[in-house]
């Protein structure tokens, strides 16, 4: 890792950011507990990554997502390790959007969520196709089955399935984070590195 | 080894547009003594400690300060720009967050601080175990830090700071969630440390401070209302009943003053116990 990247990561993860990233990694791994208790059909397994991307920065979000997948593998779900490139894309892209103020307006959040979903689908398709033949033991497998049965290759089938479901999933996650951070006190957010992502440059609130 | 602390006309605002948190505070805390800063919540006690520890500028970059802070030989115009570890040790109010949680044992937790100093001795046990013994927690060396009682956690948190041998020790409301026995133990430990360390502690009540402190400072709304000896403070007790919860003390005031003023054995013993002599 070059010195400047290392320095950027160290700067981003200093102070309160470091424990917050650790919390968000744990949140990625346990958010399913909340949705299961409320019987909501969402995974929210990237919610911590998106929170870090918005409140801290892109490098920290990449670390958050990668570490969450690594720990998920360590805790009994080894297939998560193969999707680390996907969470790198999610963290980096969301951090990029957040730095450009896309989490200040709801319509930008909506566009960003859809774009993120498309990118996630593109990033995960080759992994899912090559390693898993599109089989993830989830409801979306039927979509893959359908696309394959009408003559598409495994890669295309997985890609089409991803493009069908991922944008909606990421859109929801983006909005959840948008509404969560909207109501956080400014004096607390300012202690994390990404406070300027949520506040216009000359805003006094 | 202990450092003197001198604060001159120090004022602080969290930002240029917010009201002042501290207003023209001047204090002189001699080396090797214990100063108790008392005051209600919001008086500015923790803010003052953060300024002394060097975390204020770091965490509130928009803060505006004036005056000077001198710790030992080091003089700071307005605020120190960086955390003053290890010359200033700061024990936070909640000892549970002081414990990093990244080591499996109390011993490992304390070793973590030594590693951060960049100077780990060849035999870390030779440094850590005597410290644990001094704090009465050597039997906890192999225990998980998160499995301890409130009083034990407080002492382990203190050990994680003391292992760096700071010349100045700041304690933010150290007796929160501590029972009387644990408070008495902590008082004994701090008494033993005074010669080698200058101690500044904050509290909302008088009870813990009496018996160990050489100097009492009363802060209210960022201003110093009183700065003097415990004996002088007790003589002026009724001036501060709006700033501090003194319901337990005010009724005893006359008796305390009588015992202090009369040359009796009980009076001397009382004065000694209260640290008034």
């Amino acid at each position, binding site marked *: 890792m070059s010195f400047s990247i*290392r320095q950027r990561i*160290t700067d981003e993860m200093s*102070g*309160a950011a*470091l*424990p*917050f990233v650790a919390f*968000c*990694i*744990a*949140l990625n*791994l346990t958010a399913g*507990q909340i949705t299961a*208790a*409320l019987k*909501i059909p969402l995974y929210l397994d990237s*919610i911590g990554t998106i929170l870090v991307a918005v*409140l801290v920065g892109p490098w920290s979000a990449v670390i958050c997502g990668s*570490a969450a997948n690594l*720990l998920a*593998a360590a*805790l*009994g*779900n*080894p297939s998560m390790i193969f999707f680390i490139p996907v969470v790198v894309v999610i963290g980096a892209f969301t951090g990029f959007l957040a730095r450009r103020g896309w989490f200040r307006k709801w319509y930008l959040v909506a566009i960003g969520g859809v774009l993120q979903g498309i990118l996630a689908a593109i990033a995960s398709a080759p992994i899912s196709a*090559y*390693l*898993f*033949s599109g*089989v993830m*033991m989830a409801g979306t*497998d039927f979509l893959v*089955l359908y696309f*394959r049965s009408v003559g598409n290759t495994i890669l295309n089938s997985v890609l089409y399935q991803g493009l069908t479901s991922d944008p909606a999933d990421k859109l929801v996650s983006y909005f*959840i984070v948008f*509404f*969560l951070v909207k109501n*956080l006190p400014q004096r*607390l*957010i300012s*202690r*994390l590195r990404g406070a300027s992502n949520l506040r216009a440059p000359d805003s006094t609130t | 080894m202990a450092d003197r602390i001198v604060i001159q006309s120090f004022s602080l605002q969290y930002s240029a547009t917010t009201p002042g948190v501290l207003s023209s505070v001047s204090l002189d805390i001699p080396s090797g003594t214990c100063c108790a800063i008392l005051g209600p919540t919001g008086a500015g006690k923790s803010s003052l400690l953060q300024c002394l520890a060097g*975390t204020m500028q770091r965490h509130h970059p928009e803060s505006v300060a004036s005056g000077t802070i001198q710790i030992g030989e080091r003089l700071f115009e307005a605020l120190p720009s*960086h*955390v003053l*570890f290890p010359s200033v040790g700061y024990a*936070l109010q909640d000892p549970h*967050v002081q414990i*990093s949680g*990244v*080591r*499996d044992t109390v011993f490992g937790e304390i070793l*973590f*601080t*030594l*590693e*951060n100093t*960049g100077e780990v001795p060849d035999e*870390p046990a030779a440094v850590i175990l005597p410290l644990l013994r001094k704090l009465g927690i050597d039997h906890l060396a192999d225990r998980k830090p998160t499995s301890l009682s409130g009083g034990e956690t407080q002492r382990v948190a203190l050990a994680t*700071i003391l292992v760096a041998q700071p010349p100045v020790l700041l304690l933010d409301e150290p007796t929160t969630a501590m029972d009387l026995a644990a408070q008495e133990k902590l008082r004994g430990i701090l008494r033993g440390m005074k010669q080698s360390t200058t101690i500044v502690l904050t509290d909302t009540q008088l009870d813990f401070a009496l018996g160990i402190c050489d100097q009492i400072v009363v802060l209210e709304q960022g201003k110093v209302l009183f700065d003097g000896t415990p004996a002088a403070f007790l003589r002026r007790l009724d001036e501060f009943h709006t700033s501090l919860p003194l319901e337990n003390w005010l009724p005893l005031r006359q008796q305390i003053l009588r015992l202090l003023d009369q040359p009796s054995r009980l009076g001397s013993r009382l004065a000694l116990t209260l640290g008034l002599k």
Partner: protein
Amino acid sequence: MSTGQSLSRKLALVLLLWVCAFTLPWTIQASLCVVLIIARYAVLPLRPITPRSAKAFSRFILYSIAVATFIILLNGLLIKEGAVAAKVFGIPLHKEGLLFGARTASRLLLLSFSILLFFVSTSLPDLIEHLQTKGLPPYLALVLLLTLHFLDQLPARIHQIFLAQQARGAPVDSGLLSRTKALFSILSPLVLSSIVESIERGTALELRGFLQRPQVARVIKRSESETDWLTISLILLALAVLIYRIVQWLIA
């Protein structure tokens, strides 16, 4: 054998198995999967270190059998090349599809089993400490260790918030929209309290000098023999398999 040596050997074994997963025929891969399952019981350093990790491994074996079966059958059904090898409920399964499915499944299983076996037989704090001696930056090590700490606490904290919200009438059992609103009533205090705690923890770490100056490497007792031949052999074997496969591919 020191912890560091054991970890290095296991990492080298994972590397070898991953190389095999991408280079060797599926029949060998499948056999290696069976060997790994046997090793979980027979080889001491590869045994799960806690009952929870033993359960995780057993659960995963059952899950992976289901996944493998699904992959093989699905491909046998959809890749209509070659002769019909079998029929399931009258639906023909083609040989080429079944072979393709078998190749995919055996590769996936070998990759997954090797990782899982590594993790169930390894203490995460020991692994993180070992990686630190190999150059893992201290802030990354701290993030991972703190995460383990939060993973212990978070389920209970979530449960507490859930009960508190339920007690004040949050619609946790109503329609989907109401339950989604209830989601915010749980996430919001959770995130807020985590930021407050992070600020305090971050301050506490700085007050103990973390990252203020060059970190002293953890004092690790090294075993007398620095050269671990088994680790080196496993790495060389992995390289040999890779080179053999590349040469085969070039010749073909």
